[in-house]
């Protein structure tokens, strides 16, 4: 998934906004009255506030890296749903069952019967085989690089599909089952060029069909032939295009929109206080935003220096000042808590100063023990070389810019000088992936367990020499023993063994400090309970609640209903 889309820019309508909730209820009742359906009882309208910053292209190709967000979930569906924020709980979806065999090199799905495409054609295992072979034929469609590990996908029997992998690939279940949308063969087999296909009238198996689209609004309507009985319960979903953050925030605050995926600065005052009875938010941490040292830099390759930096950053304070307190501080194990708390090895973390909790005097003593001495300017130096670095950062993310300013002043107090270098988006991402930096402030992406993020950080195949683009191991870390550990995880389906592996990976993060996690990226999520219930909450995290998370937003829509 791309990362730039939901970067929240801090452009805020500072003035307070009065609640005009009557407008919202007016719209709701007006459209609810029009709902006449015979099959089941979907009613009412849900409006979404999520600023994407452009007029809708009305393209719904689920294999287009920019457009898949709009169809994957409500229209196109997955084989099995994996809930990343609920211990990776798996729900059968278009597949009813699956088994690993052949030394975890073959994954066989049993495909659900009685499912139809929204044009009335029956869905079958042939559609699944077709979809995956389409990705093989046209690698531009393979957004999750499924075919980097797959060797073949074939139908076995009438309703089974076997996925054969080149090597044990248990962790790829997530990408195959949850992250790849299934498309209808009878439509896509006639598409000449699937990579540029706009798919303006998507035909899927999902709970919603696209009923109207123009630059300003995408409207989805309940699919009367949906395979899950009694679902969906909301008749109409409006997904308006917002060009600026404050316009979306205003519609959310006034009650026009009920489901928000917005960054709202000072959210308690700007949003919650407008209607504390019904307005709520929940920010679930999903992955880390980190300070990446370039390990090919002679000074930063010194473990003591990285440890000192890790001890010298007050992570909760960076979240509090840089992110309005809406993102919590991360910890050095890179296990995002509380989302993945069951994976966090607290006894191990205790051995490393509670996973390098803020301790400036410890940072100083580590540097002194390593032979560094403070110069007259208060900056540590050894052999005439000062601890002075630049941090490259994305100038487009004003919250990151202020976060790095906090880091700068904290490290200065320790005796390490860092200078922010705020670059334009594409220069920044090119420099990060090419390794042209001393320190970089950057995120990665997560998955249903901490393993996914740790693998991106540490797997040597994800790196490249400085000057060539690395896919995710930007710090240029490489260790044979860590690679072997990462391989152990994908070769087993045993949760106990997987936990052991992740514990050892946490040990790597703590003892070698290859990357320094600073804050935890959250899913932006606000919801209005006045008329609609069934929302994701901290006690019922049945899906990732950010609108921009696929296919999770389709799952959320199926849970919502009018009270």
């Amino acid at each position, binding site marked *: 998934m*791309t990362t730039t889309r939901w970067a929240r820019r801090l452009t805020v309508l500072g003035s307070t906004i009065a609640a005009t909730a009557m407008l919202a209820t007016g719209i709701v009742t007006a459209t609810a009255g029009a709902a006449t359906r015979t099959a089941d009882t979907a009613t009412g309208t849900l409006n979404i506030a999520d600023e994407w910053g452009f007029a809708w292209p009305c393209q719904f190709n689920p294999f287009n890296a920019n457009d898949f967000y709009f169809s994957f979930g409500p229209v196109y569906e997955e084989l099995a749903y994996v809930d990343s924020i609920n211990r990776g709980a798996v729900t059968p979806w278009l597949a009813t069952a699956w088994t690993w065999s052949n030394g975890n090199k073959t994954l066989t799905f049993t495909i659900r019967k009685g499912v139809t495409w929204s044009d009335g054609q029956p869905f079958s295992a042939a559609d699944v085989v077709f979809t995956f072979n389409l990705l093989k034929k046209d690698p531009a469609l393979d957004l999750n690089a499924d075919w980097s590990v797959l060797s073949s996908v074939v139908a076995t029997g009438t309703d089974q599909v076997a996925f054969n992998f080149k090597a044990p690939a248990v962790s790829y279940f997530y990408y195959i089952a949850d992250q790849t949308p299934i498309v209808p063969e009878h439509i896509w087999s006639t598409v000449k060029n699937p990579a540029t296909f706009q798919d303006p009238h998507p035909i899927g198996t999902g709970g919603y069909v696209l009923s109207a689209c123009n630059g300003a609004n995408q409207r989805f309507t309940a699919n009367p032939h949906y395979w899950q009985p009694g679902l969906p319960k909301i008749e109409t979903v409006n997904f308006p295009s917002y060009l600026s953050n404050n316009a979306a925030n205003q519609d959310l605050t006034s009650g026009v929109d009920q489901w928000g995926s917005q960054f709202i600065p000072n959210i308690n005052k700007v949003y919650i206080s407008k209607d504390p009875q019904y307005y709520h938010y929940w920010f679930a941490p999903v992955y880390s935003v980190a300070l990446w040292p370039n390990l090919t830099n002679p000074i930063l390759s010194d473990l003591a220096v990285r440890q000192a930096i890790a001890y010298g950053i007050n992570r909760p304070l960076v979240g509090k000042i840089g992110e309005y307190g809406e993102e919590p501080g991360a910890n050095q194990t890179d296990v995002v808590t509380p989302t993945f708390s069951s994976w966090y090895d607290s006894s191990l973390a205790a051995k490393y100063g509670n996973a390098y909790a803020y301790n400036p005097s410890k940072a100083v003593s580590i540097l002194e023990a390593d032979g560094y001495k403070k110069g007259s300017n208060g900056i540590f130096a050894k052999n005439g070389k000062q601890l002075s670095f630049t941090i490259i950062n994305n100038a487009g993310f004003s919250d990151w810019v202020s976060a790095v300013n906090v880091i700068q002043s904290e490290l200065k107090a320790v005796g390490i000088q860092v200078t922010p270098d705020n670059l334009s988006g594409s220069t920044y991402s090119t420099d990060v992936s090419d390794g042209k930096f001393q320190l970089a402030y950057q995120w990665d992406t997560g998955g249903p367990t901490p393993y996914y993020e740790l693998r991106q950080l540490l797997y040597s195949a994800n790196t490249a020499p400085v000057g060539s683009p690395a896919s995710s191991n930007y710090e240029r870390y490489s260790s044979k023993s860590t690679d072997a550990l990462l391989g152990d995880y994908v070769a087993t389906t045993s949760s106990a063994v997987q936990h052991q592996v992740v514990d050892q990976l946490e040990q790597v993060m703590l003892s070698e400090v290859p990357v320094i996690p600073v804050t935890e990226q959250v899913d932006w999520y606000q919801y209005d309970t006045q008329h609609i219930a069934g929302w994701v909450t901290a006690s019922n995290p049945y899906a990732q609640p950010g609108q921009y998370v696929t296919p999770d937003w389709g799952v959320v829509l199926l849970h919502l209903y009018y009270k």
Partner: protein
Amino acid sequence: MRFVVRRLGFFAVTVWAAISLNFMIPRLMPGNPAQVLVAEHPHLNPQALHSLLALLGGTTHQSLPSQYATYWAHVATFNFGISLTTSFGKSVDAMVYQALPWTLGLVGITTLLAFIFGTLIGLISAWRRGTWLDSALPPIFVVTSAFPYFWMALLSIYIFSVTLGWFPSEHPYNIFTDSPDLNWHYVGDVLDHAVLPAFTILITAIGGWILTMRNNVITVLSDDYVRMARAKGLKPWRIMWHYAGKNAILPNLTGFAMSLGFIVSGAILVEYVFDYPGVGSLLLQSVNDLDYPLMQALFLLITMAVLVSVLAADVLTAVLDPRTREQS
């Protein structure tokens, strides 16, 4: 006639230079569309990326001159390729056509209104110099035109939309209940939604027209032929319109013709604040996303519009003012 031909020749050279610069500048800039694609698609493996690039024509190695020739052929047929990042795969032409009517409608009409009202107020306040009208209107509008667009926009949203609830604060029409079909309800809704952005642009743009018009009229009023007209005993309104107004309006007309060219570039900040899907929003988005094909098309569109309107202004001035036609 010779004047017009000379102007046309100069125009042709400028157009050639502008189109060529539009070709050269993106190629001289650091970075390239392939890098942007890599940044946009972090999980794509190199093979997939290669096939994506092949699809876009990024792997065919043309020499610079032959690229230039292809580019001219595309410009001549209004083919600007497909969007790389903003709406990947969508034709740039379609995106521009989608945005253009909103901008032409909003910024075009407000520019016209600002020109008309500004010129009238300038003329009348100069004619009635020293009256309450002259001491009230020009200063007020000069002050309002000193406000930044977006600040005025936020202020008007706060007052007229949030506090008073008179007008909607965003979108070109009610996107929840309306669909863009041509009927009276929809047209009314569009107008209702255009009031605040139009008001914002109008109130910030009008001051300039007032000032120049007022100053010109005052200069003209002290000219001999106006004194002559008074001496002849002509009616004041006739002097005001035909002697003072007609001569003083020339610089304003030239300015107006030129500002017509800038209409297509939209009012970026106003469109941004009001969530108006015009060319300004599109331009902002394309620059944010480094969508090279879209940027190129928009910059070319704006350049051409300005060039054409400058030409129009030149010709117009020549027609209206014989002095500019004389050889020096």
